[in-house]
């Protein structure tokens, strides 16, 4: 069985001119595809803005574009996993300490 092929690329978009400033955006392109000419094909593409470089006449500044929602959801998922792990350890320790020992 053929597995889907994943490709991740960082692509520069067209520069945006705003007054004297020039913005150079970059986009993260994540492509998941499976191509089988005899059976079928599927493609999934995700375009996520990565950062912009703001160029002035004298200087340049790099600014990251954060995905706030995704970051918060990731933190919540990590917290949920942490709660489950700690709770499981406490339950396991409690059951181990309260278990009847051999020879008693």
């Amino acid at each position: 069985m053929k597995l889907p092929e994943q490709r991740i690329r960082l692509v520069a978009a067209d520069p945006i001119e705003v007054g004297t400033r020039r913005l150079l955006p970059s986009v993260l392109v994540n492509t998941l595809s499976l191509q089988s000419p005899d059976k079928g094909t599927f493609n999934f593409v995700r375009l996520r803005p990565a950062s912009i470089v703001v160029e002035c006449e004298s200087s340049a500044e790099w600014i990251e574009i954060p995905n706030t929602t995704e970051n918060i959801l990731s933190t919540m998922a990590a917290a949920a996993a942490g709660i489950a792990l700690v709770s499981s350890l406490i339950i396991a320790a409690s059951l181990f300490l309260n278990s009847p020992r051999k020879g008693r």
Partner: protein
Amino acid sequence: MEAVKALFERLDKVPEEVNVNAVFGTPETIDGLTLIPVAEIMYGFGAGVGSGPSNECDEASADADAAEGEAAIGAGGGAGAKARPIAYIAVGPEGARVQPIMDEQKVALAGILLGFWAIGWVGLVLKTLFTRRS
């Protein structure tokens, strides 16, 4: 069948032709402040094809159909796309800054789920700690 293969070949080339400029919207200037919307874009599509004998009940006639090139062909496909604003870039006299846009509904739902999850685990721990073994 050749037309379906040609369609697949055409679809396979679409990701290579992705226009990354769609992520950044058209700049709009309001009171000397230029705003550029930034979105996350996702899209996908799939298609499949299959063929078989035109009459499955009669193997003899199915073999004959296959030999004559009269096998039945079925094909289907689907596609979808989604765009979500994640930030906007504000360019003013003092410089450029990125202002993130949070999906409050999604975060609130996730927070409620996390609350129930935490309450469930704490309840299970308390039940284990305070239940005496018989």
